[in-house]
């Protein structure tokens, strides 16, 4: 720390001559290519996949890329997307919840019963269903932590048991209609953002990137660490802002951005923060990567598993209620069929590894848009659901193959 050290003193993290350090925008791009080559694919496969899928469907039916259809797509994505967000948490710690579909259906049934049949206020009914979802997750966590029951089996048992609960509380009628015109149903079907608000919100990510990028750079420079060039930060912020504003402008040519989608994105951003910038998120990643090492580092591994199970079931419950709002009904069919697999597929397709310790909240967002694009495009082509299932299954298989190959390549290139 003496002042006599020459000004050209090396940065703390740039002392090793063996490491390549890329600078500026060109450097960022070549570093990215390097990462991809060694199997650290990140969001690349899903973006490529999305471009392919959208190109195919647009050539088959131009309506696919119309603003109206895309707004619909966003409405549909939000419900299962929220469920997929919970799946990301489970996959992060290397476990799985197969009962998310049942839990979502049960929550929607509970909402219907409490709200419509028993006349509870909506917020209270929602909170009640969320709490019950959390309780189901807590039970799984206890089975896992105390009895060492594999999550696969515990939640498979839960799939049936919770479905039974759903059928039981719906009783003889089998379905409950949620009143049209109620705020919740409007939220699920109609409400979109006023245009100025949409444009304003779309500018936020760019601004946040600029502010945090600038602050981090300043702190790192002060501390004698290398820092990103401000030009690069500005460049990416501008690109992101332009992209988002254009997307919003296009959606605004019809109904605009759904509030329900905004809620979904808010949850994704919040989850991303929690996973990357908090001790809890770090612990989740550590437990998924090496459970014993995490335990020896003093992390309360059981509590981490419990949090994953509870949050996953709560997200499933929330997603189920959003789906009920979207359909304006809570029925015996809610949460059955392909909900389970779509949510899991979305998380995996989006780039969260099935092997634990690797993933991102954004994979739920990207993955569900892929899944819904396929469903939506095939519906536009008037194809039966038999074909839809087969194609979605195929895409999931491809996504898992990409994940496995990338993992093998990462191991070979020492990136694990």
């Amino acid at each position, binding site marked *: 720390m003496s002042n006599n050290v020459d000004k050209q003193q090396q940065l703390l993290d740039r002392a*090793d001559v*063996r490491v390549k350090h890329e600078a500026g925008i060109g450097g960022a791009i070549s570093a990215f290519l390097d990462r991809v080559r060694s199997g650290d694919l990140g969001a690349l496969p899903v973006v490529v996949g999305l471009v392919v899928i959208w190109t195919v469907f647009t050539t088959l039916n131009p309506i696919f890329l119309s603003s109206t259809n895309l707004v619909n797509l966003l409405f549909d994505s939000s419900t299962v997307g929220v469920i997929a967000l919970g799946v990301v948490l489970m996959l992060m710690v290397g476990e799985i919840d197969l009962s998310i579909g049942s839990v979502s259906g049960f929550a929607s049934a509970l909402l219907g019963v409490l709200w419509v049949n028993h006349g509870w206020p909506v917020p209270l009914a929602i909170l009640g269903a969320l709490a019950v979802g959390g309780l189901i997750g807590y039970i799984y966590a206890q089975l896992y932590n105390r009895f060492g029951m594999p999550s696969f089996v515990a939640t498979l048992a839960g799939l049936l048991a919770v479905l039974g609960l759903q059928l039981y509380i719906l009783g003889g009628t089998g379905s409950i209609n949620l009143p049209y015109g109620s705020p919740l149903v409007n939220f699920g079907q109609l409400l979109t953002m006023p245009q100025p608000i949409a444009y304003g919100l779309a500018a936020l990510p760019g601004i946040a990137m600029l502010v945090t990028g600038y602050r981090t750079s300043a702190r790192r420079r002060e501390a004698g660490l290398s820092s990103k060039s401000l030009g690069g930060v500005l460049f990416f912020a501008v690109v992101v802002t332009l992209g988002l504003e254009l997307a919003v402008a296009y959606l605004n040519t019809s109904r605009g951005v759904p509030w329900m989608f905004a809620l979904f994105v808010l949850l994704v951003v919040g989850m991303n923060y929690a996973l990357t910038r908090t001790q809890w998120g770090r612990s989740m990643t550590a437990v*998924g990567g090496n459970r014993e090492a995490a335990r*020896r580092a*003093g992390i309360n591994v059981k509590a981490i598993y419990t949090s994953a199970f509870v949050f996953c079931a709560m997200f499933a419950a929330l997603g189920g209620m959003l789906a009920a709002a979207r359909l304006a009904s809570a029925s015996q069919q809610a949460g059955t069929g392909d909900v389970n697999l779509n949510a899991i597929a979305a998380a995996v397709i989006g780039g969260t590894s099935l092997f634990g310790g*690797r993933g991102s909240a954004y994979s739920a967002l990207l993955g569900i848009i892929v899944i819904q694009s396929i469903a939506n495009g095939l519906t536009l082509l008037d194809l039966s659901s038999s074909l839809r299932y087969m194609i979605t299954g195929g895409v999931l298989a491809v996504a898992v193959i990409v994940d496995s190959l990338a993992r093998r390549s990462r191991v070979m290139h020492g990136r694990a």
Partner: protein
Amino acid sequence: MTDSSSDSAATGELLLSLRGICKNFGAVSALTDIDLDVHAGEVVALVGDNGAGKSTLVKILSGVHRPTSGTIQVRGQEVSLPNPSASLAIGIATVFQDLALCENLDVVANIFLGKELNPLQLDEVGMEIRSWKLLNELSARIPSVREAVASLSGGQRQTVAIARSLLLDPRIILLDEPTAALGVAQTAEVLNLIERVRDRGLGVVMISHNMEDVRAVADRIVVLRLGKNNGVFYPDASNAELVGAITGASDNSVSRRAGRKAEANLTGDAQP
């Protein structure tokens, strides 16, 4: 009851004392009646053949395993170490033989795992600076602290694990084979580091198969054989004596006498 005054630097204070530690894995007695004392400012080397129970003893002290019977006293107070966090909280830091690093996390995240700065908004810059300082203290050759640990070599991983153990300013450091994977310069650095840590008044327990390293830094050499205490030696003991005690090849009256003498010296030292 004098532990309120921070006198950990007072050389000679009894930091850790094990009495009659036994550990059974099913029918196998991994440890039988182990006694071990560690004083402040002292390096105790644990040596023994494979299967002698060295690593098991370290795992008991770090809270990974629980002893079947026996007592553990830290600074005169009996403690139980039911899990690793209890051990860390009491001031025992461990570098495990298998290092216990998370390969999917980067170096900074591994060093700070479980004790991140600012839990609700991780202070990445602060953690990175501290990591570089710790690593530079160890003269580590880590190319970048933002690479996943998976991309590091064995020696680099070892350095990361050692850096991590120093983070919390522990009272006692347990090192399980700290130099096994290290190059010449890094081994010397680790030995220097062990001496620096000892001079700061910490107690160090080091497991090693390398007699040169042991002799270079240890103040006392405790030999385990088949899960039992098999004598205490000092660095001036001859190789033949040590090897004899370790392998049991010369388990005769001479070695037993040397062991007894050493014990007698030790108990004499302990009560000045």
